[in-house]
Structures are given as C-alpha cells and as structure tokens.
C-alpha cells in the first residue's frame, strides 16, 4: 500500500491545466448537487415528515401510503383520476385494496442468472439483495443531483435500440405510464425507460426487458436533463406484477424474493415505509443492518449519544464512534458535529423517542447483522 500511496501522490503533481480541468468539473458537480438538494421533491416534505416521525415512529405504524392509484391495470388508463400527491395514510386499507386490483401479464417463475451478464459489466455490479439497500442508494443519489424514484408502471410500447454500453449494444426503450409512484407527483405521466438487454438471463428465452402490456414495480433513476430513466440495479429493482396482481421478483436473493407470490400492496407498503424516511430511516436501517451500535454515556455532566459505525461495513469489533449527539431534554446536534443530513432529524427527539425509532426499525428488519453477502 505504501507504493500505491506514492502513485497517489504522483498523480497530484500533474500539470496545472489538467488539475484545474478536473477541479472545475468537480466544482460544477458540487453546484449541481446543491441545486438538486434545493429542488429535490422529497425535501419539500422532508421537514414535516421528520417532525411527524417523532409521533409516527413512536406509534410504530409502518403504513405511510401515497395517493390512490390513478386507475387499475385492467383498464389501462393509468393517467385517469390521479389522486392528490401524498394524500396521507391508509388507515382503512382502502389504498392497499386498490393497489391489489392492478393486474399485469401472466408471469413465469424463473430466476435471473447473473452469469449471463458480460464479465466486464459484472466487474462493477453490486447485487442488491434487500430493499433497504436499494433505498440507501436512493437516499445517496437524491443528494447527488440524480432523480430517483420507485414507481408502478404499465408498459405501453417498446422498441429495440442500439446502445454504447459495457453491458452490450442491444437495448430497449419502453414507453410507460406511471400508475403510482412514491412521491405521488408523476401519476398519470408517461416516461421512457432505457434498458440494456441481458440476453438469456435464465438460460431460456426470458430477458430482463420490460414487456408490452406488463406492469412492473421499478426502482428508477434519471439524470437531470436526461429524457429517459433507467432501472437501478436492473435485475434487482425489477418486480413484475402478474395477471393476478401478485409479485414476481425473479431474484435469487431471499430479501427480494420474499415478495414473490405476495400481493402488490405488501411490497408497496414496504417501499413506502422505507422511502418516506429518506433522511434517517433508511439510513438507520442500513447502519443497523451493518451492525451500528448506539451507546448513551455521561460526559461532562450531560447525556451524550454515541453512534458507532463499523469502519469496514460489517465488522462490529472494528467500529469507531463517528457521532456524538447531546441529549438534554431532547437531542441536540452540537456545534462542529459532522454536517451530514442523516443526523439532523434526530434533533428534537427525546431519548425515548430515539430508542423507539431504533426498535421500530429493528422490528421492521426482523433481524440484525449484515447479510448483504448472503446469496
């Protein structure tokens, strides 16, 4: 590693013009991120959500639901009758009932064979085996000038396209209608989804490409200014709704395939549950999954919360304290604390509420410890 450091230092001695060129790009990137933070849709309601979490988390009712679906899949009129975005909760299960009227195409039970992905592309692939990890990616991405959303879409038409990608040249552009989305602001709209073909994913005829007439629950990303979306993780965030309204993940990961054969409303409730808490809930879920430890100590006459982060992801023994939040009547963020968005929602919580939030997430996860590497 010592000699890698020498190379690393040597890179810093490049000519000024190249340094400045890279630096100016970085600066542009930072500006874009900032603008995105300002405009990110979820930020508009993040603050009220954070405030409400004090109550909602303590109550431990994981049923934040968005607006009712615009129309069911049988009717095909996804744009009709769009509801009010983020209209509220679903205490009587009416929204869930409507979600479960959505129907897609008959679907086969098969499992993606990742071995069919080109080796070059596989090199960079990080499989997502839990919904919460997908959410963590979204949380990060929303802070980086990338639009990210979960949506239930119906595929109106598809056409083959040629792509310049490490995944290969073959691709497809699908025109889809949004039946439902986590932010509630795209219902009824049309969007384009670009995919690379993973041919022979199953060793048979199935591919990862969206099918005309099909209904899918997708994790979608787009760059600002881009006219199309991509499926994040593709083989991972690609849930199919069958002709009976049941889910097919085609995933070999238990964390995703646990939704197989379950009603759409169950998957969507979990998506809403995680996605509606981008500021800390999905982050905590991830960190707890990694083995984050929490400790209350008394320092200089005041209670302090220490959050311990495993340095290398999963080794709890190798963890280090990376944040200390002061607890008086409520948690406050001390001056000079890391200015990560993750910590801000803790401010104002009592110790009891904070612990309730932790227990709530643990109950939701149903397990502790990192299992990302599990097949």
């Amino acid at each position, binding site marked *: *590693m010592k*000699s*890698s*450091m*020498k*190379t*690393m*230092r*040597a*890179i*810093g*001695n*490049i*000519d*000024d*013009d*190249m*340094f*400045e*060129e*890279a*630096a*100016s*790009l*970085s*600066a542009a*990137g*930072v500006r*874009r991120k900032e603008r995105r933070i300002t405009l990110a849709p979820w930020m508009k309601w993040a603050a009220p959500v954070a405030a409400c979490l004090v109550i909602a988390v303590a109550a431990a009712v994981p049923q934040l639901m968005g607006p009712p679906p615009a129309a069911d899949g049988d009717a095909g009129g996804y744009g009709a009758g769009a509801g009010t975005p983020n209209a509220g909760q679903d205490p009587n299960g009416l929204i869930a009932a409507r979600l479960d009227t959505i129907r897609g195409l008959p679907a086969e039970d098969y499992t993606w064979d990742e071995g069919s992905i080109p080796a*070059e*592309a596989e*090199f*960079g*692939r*990080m499989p997502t085996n839990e919904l919460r990890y997908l959410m963590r*990616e979204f949380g*990060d*991405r929303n802070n*980086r*000038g*990338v639009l990210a959303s979960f949506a239930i879409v119906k595929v109106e038409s598809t056409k083959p396209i040629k792509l310049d*990608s*490490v*995944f290969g040249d073959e691709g497809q552009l699908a025109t889809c209608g949004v039946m439902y989305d986590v932010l509630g602001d795209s219902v009824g709209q049309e969007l384009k989804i670009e995919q690379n073909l993973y041919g022979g994913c199953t060793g048979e005829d199935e591919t990862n490409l969206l099918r005309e007439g099909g209904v899918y629950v997708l994790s979608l990303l787009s*760059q600002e200014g*881009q006219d199309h979306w*991509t499926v994040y993780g593709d083989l991972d965030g690609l849930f199919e709704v069958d002709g009976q309204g049941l889910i097919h993940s085609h995933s070999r990961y238990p964390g995703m395939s646990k939704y197989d054969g379950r009603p759409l409303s169950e998957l969507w409730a979990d998506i809403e549950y995680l996605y509606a808490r981008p500021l800390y809930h999905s982050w905590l879920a991830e960190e707890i999954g990694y083995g984050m430890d929490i400790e209350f100590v008394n320092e200089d006459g005041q209670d302090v919360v220490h959050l311990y982060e495993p*340095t*290398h992801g999963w080794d709890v023994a190798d963890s*280090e304290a990376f944040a200390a939040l002061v607890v008086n009547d409520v948690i406050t963020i001390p001056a*000079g604390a*890391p*200015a*990560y968005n993750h910590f801000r929602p803790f401010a104002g919580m009592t110790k009891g509420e904070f612990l309730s939030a932790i227990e709530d997430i643990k109950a939701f996860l149903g397990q502790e410890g990192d299992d990302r590497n599990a097949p």
Partner: protein
Amino acid sequence: MDDQAIIELFWQRSEDALAEVSARFGRYCRTIAVNILHSVEDADECVSDTWLRAWNAMPPARPNKLAAFLGRITRNLALDRYEAMRAQKRGGGEMELALEELADLAAPEKAGEGEISHAINAFLRSEAPEHRNIFLKRYLCLYSIKEIAAEYGYSESKVKSLLLRVRNRLKIELESEGLL
C-alpha cells in the same frame, strides 16, 4: 475577483485574501479533503491549513492557476493526514478503495515520485479528455464511483470499466518506462 487579483491581495499581505480564497475555493478544497479523509472535521482543519500554507507561500509564489495551486496543497495535506490516520488505524472511505484500485500501479521503492509524476503526466495528456477527467476525478479528487457516474450520466459499471481500462493502459506505459 479573478485569480490574479486574489494573488495580489496575498502579496499585499491583506487578510482579505483569506476571505476571498475561502469564499471562492473553500467548498472545492473541502470536497477534496473530505473525499480523502472521510471526515468533515479533519477536512476542515486541512482547509484551514491550506490557507495558512498559501499565506506563507505567497509571496514569493505567484501561481498561474490558483485552483490547482490550492487544490494541490489541500490534497497533499490531506494525504499527509490520511497516512497519519492510517497509522492510528483510522481512515477508510474512498481513499482506501482508490489505493486498492491503484495496487497494480504500485511503484517500487526505488522509483522516484518525480519520474512517476512525469510519466503519468505524459500519459494523461495522450488520453481522451473524458477518460482523463474521469481518471482524475477518481484518483486526484477521490470522488466515489457513484458520484462520477452521477456526474457523467453513466452507470457505475461503465465508470469502473473505463477506469480499469485507463489504469491498464497506464500500467503498460509505466512498465515501458521501467517504473513498475
């Protein structure tokens, strides 16, 4: 205020120079340091030290490109601090990953940093601008693969693949120069 005007303030020993560089380059230098150190507090100290180094360096220095001048100071300070943190078993983050990625380009002890720099400089000049910038964003600015992918609108896989190819080409170049 342009670069030369700010440099002039340094030469006049005006403390306004510090306010100007902080306002104009503070976020940029902080980003470089955070990416290396994975710690906001350590990064902020690096940035403060950068202004001090710049204050001590100008005069006599009169850099042509202030961004490169300051960024290089910040980067070197952050690398120094990173090595100290590693000795205390702190660290982690993108720097750790980037060093692992550069393992194939690890220079032997006998190779001089100046020679390596010269070879890397010439190599990067021969690369396509986009490839060069992506390489530099990763190994100069220590941006994560995700951030670079988001910046360029590429998949993370594509960025990793592109970096691998550039590293492989650089490896061949360094080997041909007898530096590996």
